[in-house]
């Protein structure tokens, strides 16, 4: 029986404090009387029933208290709309920006692919591999349940049936037929590719993405079985991918999935027998780990296999080279990040989000502290009449939560708005559409969680602080105006100092990025940029055979030259000023004397005859490519055993310096991509559209490129009187050869640069927005707190003025406190920002470019602290000025 009494007592004591105050004793007594009676009358069931009654009422009572708190909180906020407005604004900005960051980056890095079964078991390798190798990997049944080959960002000329319109350039993936099987996917419509059905020699079957189905076919179910013209050949649409799936292993969406079993006429990427050539490393592989196999185990096993395969390849690293040859990455997310870098990138974003939210919280905390001081009397009375401290804290935290939830809703709306701006930003043509990363319930949940955390975060400390009130003095008449008792290191001052420091840190770090990006945002041309245009052409994907394509390109220069509206032109694979950072063209200096040969990873650009003269760039040494170079064979994979002939190569100054120092580069030989190259020219470093200069190796455009244009096609870079003239000229010249040839991605240089800048600007907006946010918030916080301090010291100021203090003295009295805080905060924030930037640059190269450009900028290093300090002082000054206009008589009459 004792047990039941104890259990009842314990449960009864768990009821809310106020409920216990009113009914606790009676309830205890009633219960204890009842227990004995119940035990006699109903036995165990009765005892259980009485405890169950308590258990069920317990949450209900708490809930009713929360409802009461909430009602009270709403009333309080309605009574001080200014505080509520600033609070909602601060939290809204904080949560909005963080949520935006979250959708922009975090989701991209962490969200798994839609429609994929068990995406965490999918892996891929950092390096690409050849098709025969992938088949060897597939044999490792104990490691993988499936291995598929994928070639990314493959462009197709697609003409839909029944349309007379010109074919459209469409991005897709070239995949082995077991691709969807490895992904473990079920189609939305029709069927997916299948190794059993999609064999070599059958009618080419393709699968389209859900997105493409909606945008091009209006989600018409009759799409299954429709034929399309794919690079001039007939193909049948057999299925639609699951919702929101647009390719694995690709950061940008694929719209069409074409099996590797189609003939090379459909997919020129397959020409040259790449499916059987072990040196054509064109494919990425997508593997599903067998149950129980860890990614590390798979990695070391694959490393061993690759090492054996490399034995047959004379250009592979020597067997003595102990470096890892296979590095596996998780492939279940849209962006694959090396496993060791992943926590660092996520850490950077988490840190940025934390700083933004922390600043918003600090801002509200300082305001809540000030309010807490103003409510001392109210709180003291409530404590005096028996409210528990916990109850008061809960009341204040409820107010905070309400505020931050309202702010969270505002923030979510802001994130939504930012998102739709980003969604409408076009990316540079030539790269596919913006990947789908729209706001969904994940984001909403994130914003909500953030609001709850920050609501509790900013209100708990001030609540603890405010309820520590000594009841007696606070209740005394006029005790709210204590003349002394000003604490130098009080919680409030600490919070303001931290806020100034945090804002400056944010302003500087985002400033580094912004300035870095802005600086990089200028392309320098030695000609009028309004006279240049780019037009892409790809005859093979218009249905030409390689030989026909070659013939087309042989005739093209003469036609272009004969067009009066074109002053100068060149052909190339990459248009000039294209940003890039994929420096995987490894060059090794051919030097028999050197113990360790000089090596340098460069960016490979393929350019045709007269490319640099079109750009008006001077040739620093040697010569540039001419028509003879353009007639070279250039086949990268001739018959087995044959030695590839030496080819000419041009280097950018940066690349030349890295390989040959200050020595002469002309005539020297380097190795790279399985052949020897002879340096024939050195050209200046050209700043790309993102403002970076890279070490670039320029290889000549050859007959091989004409026969099998790379996936992006060949670009005609032309200048005329105006860019429009040049475009018209190229169109008529091409049409004079064959009117059916498609010209795609037609752009003037200005449009092209504008598009690249647009994507940079959206980054600028985000980072700039964050910096600005910190600035505004800290100014609001400082103004609020100083204003409050002035209001509290009205009587003191009144006395001082009555005793003859001058206005300037009062001003300096109020300002002194603010200045000290701002100064300390500025120094701490400055040191923190420099340290953080250094640390980030050291940890990852992702931000180093932007940082290295921004960090050294005196405008930022001096400007940002001065700006912030100035704004902070202004925020102190305005309320301080008001203090000097206090009428001593009125102030003294108060209370």
């Amino acid at each position, binding site marked *: 029986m004792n047990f039941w009494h104890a259990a009842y007592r314990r449960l009864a004591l768990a009821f809310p404090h106020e409920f216990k105050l*009113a*009914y606790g*004793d*009676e*309830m205890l*007594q*009633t219960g204890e009387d009842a227990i004995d009676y119940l035990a006699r009358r109903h036995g165990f069931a009765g005892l259980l029933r009485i405890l169950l009654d*308590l258990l069920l009422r317990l949450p209900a009572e708490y809930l*009713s208290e929360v409802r009461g708190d909430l009602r009270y909180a709403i009333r309080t906020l309605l009574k001080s709309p200014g505080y509520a407005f600033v609070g909602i604004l601060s939290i809204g900005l904080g949560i909005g920006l963080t949520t935006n960051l979250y959708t922009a980056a975090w989701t991209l890095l962490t969200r798994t692919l839609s429609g994929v079964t068990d995406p965490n078991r999918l892996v891929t390798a950092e390096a690409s591999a050849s098709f025969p190798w992938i088949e060897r990997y597939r044999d490792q049944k104990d490691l993988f349940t499936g291995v598929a080959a994928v070639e990314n960002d493959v462009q197709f000329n697609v003409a839909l049936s029944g349309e007379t319109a010109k074919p459209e350039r469409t991005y897709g993936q070239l995949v082995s037929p077991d691709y969807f099987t490895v992904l473990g996917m079920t189609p939305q419509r029709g069927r997916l590719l299948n190794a059993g059905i999609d064999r070599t020699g059958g009618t080419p079957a393709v699968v389209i993405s859900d997105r493409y189905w909606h945008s091009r076919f209006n989600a018409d179910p009759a799409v299954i079985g429709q034929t399309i013209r794919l690079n001039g050949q007939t193909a049948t649409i057999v299925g639609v991918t699951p919702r929101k799936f647009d390719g694995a292993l690709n950061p940008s969406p694929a719209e069409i999935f074409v099996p590797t079993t189609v003939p090379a006429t459909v997919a020129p990427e397959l020409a040259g027998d790449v499916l059987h050539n072990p040196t054509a490393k064109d494919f990425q592989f997508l593997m599903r780990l067998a149950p129980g196999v860890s990614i590390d185990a798979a990695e070391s096993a694959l490393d061993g296999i690759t090492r054996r395969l490399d034995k047959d390849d004379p250009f592979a690293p020597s067997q003595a080279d102990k470096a890892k040859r296979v590095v596996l990455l998780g492939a279940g997310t849209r962006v694959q990040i090396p496993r060791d870098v992943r926590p660092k990138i996520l850490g950077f974003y988490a840190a940025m989000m934390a700083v933004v939210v922390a600043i918003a919280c600090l801002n509200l905390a300082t305001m809540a502290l000030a309010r807490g001081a103003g409510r001392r009397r109210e709180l003291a009375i409530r404590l005096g009449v028996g409210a528990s401290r916990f109850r008061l804290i809960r009341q204040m935290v409820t107010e905070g939560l309400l505020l931050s939830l309202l702010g969270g809703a505002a923030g979510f709306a802001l994130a939504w708005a930012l998102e739709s701006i980003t969604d409408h930003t076009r990316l540079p043509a030539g790269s596919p559409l913006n990947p789908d990363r729209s706001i969904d319930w994940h984001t909403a949940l994130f914003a909500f969680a953030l609001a709850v955390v920050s609501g509790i975060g900013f209100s708990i400390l001030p609540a603890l602080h405010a309820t520590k009130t000594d009841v007696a003095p606070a209740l005394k008449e006029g005790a709210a105006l204590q003349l002394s008792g000003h604490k130098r290191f009080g919680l409030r001052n600490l919070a303001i100092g931290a806020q100034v420091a945090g804002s400056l840190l944010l302003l500087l770090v985002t400033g580094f990025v912004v300035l870095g990006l802005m600086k990089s945002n200028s392309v320098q041309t030695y000609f009028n940029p309004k006279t240049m245009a780019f037009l892409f052409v790809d005859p093979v994907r218009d249905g030409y055979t390689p030989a026909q394509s070659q013939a087309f390109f042989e005739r093209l220069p003469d036609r272009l030259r004969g067009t009066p509206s074109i002053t100068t032109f060149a052909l190339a694979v990459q248009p000039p000023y294209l940003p890039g950072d994929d420096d995987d063209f490894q060059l090794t200096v051919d030097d028999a004397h050197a113990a360790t040969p000089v090596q340098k990873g460069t960016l490979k650009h393929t350019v045709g005859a007269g490319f640099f003269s079109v750009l008006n760039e001077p040739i620093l040494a040697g010569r540039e490519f001419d028509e003879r170079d353009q007639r070279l064979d250039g086949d990268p994979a001739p018959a087995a055993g044959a030695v590839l002939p030496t080819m000419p190569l041009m280097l950018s100054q940066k690349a030349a310096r890295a390989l040959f120092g200050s020595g002469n580069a002309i005539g020297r030989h380097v190795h790279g991509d399985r052949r020897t190259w002879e340096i024939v020219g050195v050209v200046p470093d050209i700043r790309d559209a993102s403002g970076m200069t890279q070490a670039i190796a320029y290889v000549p455009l050859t007959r091989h490129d004409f026969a099998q244009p790379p996936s992006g096609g060949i670009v005609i870079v032309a200048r005329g009187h105006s860019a429009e003239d040049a475009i018209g000229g190229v169109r008529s010249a091409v049409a004079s050869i064959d009117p059916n040839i498609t010209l795609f991605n037609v752009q003037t240089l200005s449009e092209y640069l504008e598009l690249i800048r647009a994507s940079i600007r959206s980054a600028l907006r985000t980072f700039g927005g964050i910096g600005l946010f910190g600035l505004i918030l800290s100014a609001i916080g400082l103004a609020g707190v100083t204003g409050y301090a002035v209001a509290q010291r009205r009587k003191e100021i009144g006395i001082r003025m009555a005793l003859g203090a001058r206005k300037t003295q009062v001003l300096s009295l109020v300002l002194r406190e603010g200045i000290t805080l701002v100064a300390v905060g500025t120094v701490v924030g400055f040191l923190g920002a420099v340290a953080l930037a250094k640390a980030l640059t050291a940890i990852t190269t992702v931000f180093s470019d932007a940082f290295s450009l921004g960090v050294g900028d005196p405008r930022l290093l001096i400007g940002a602290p001065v700006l912030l300090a100035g704004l902070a002082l202004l925020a102190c000054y305005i309320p301080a000025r008001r203090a000097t206009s206090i009428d001593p008589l009125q102030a003294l009459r108060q209370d």
Partner: protein
Amino acid sequence: MTEQAQVQSFLPLKAQWFHILLSLAGEEQHGYGIMQEVLERTTGKVRLWPATLYGSLKRLIEADLIAESRSRPAPEFDDARRRYYRLTPLGRRVLDAECERLQDLVHAIQAKRAVGPAKRMTP
């Protein structure tokens, strides 16, 4: 809100509220007394468990249907811990309205009964 509408907004009353109000209709009572009274009146069918009882009392006070009474019994019967409750005028009106509603209900049932068995008898 008119007085009538305010009364109507409480109807139909929750069972335990009805029993508490009914107990207080005659005299002022303390919590334990209410519990006992209900138990006796319903011959043990309705037991107001302690937490339900005090939770309901709290809500009835918040709804202004009952109030704490100032008058206390003679000291020899009093226990300082006990609180006594009485009906407020609003509480009485609500109770009356509820009784009326229940009576109407009973009439309706009886009217139906009068025809019910007769129907059952015809094959």
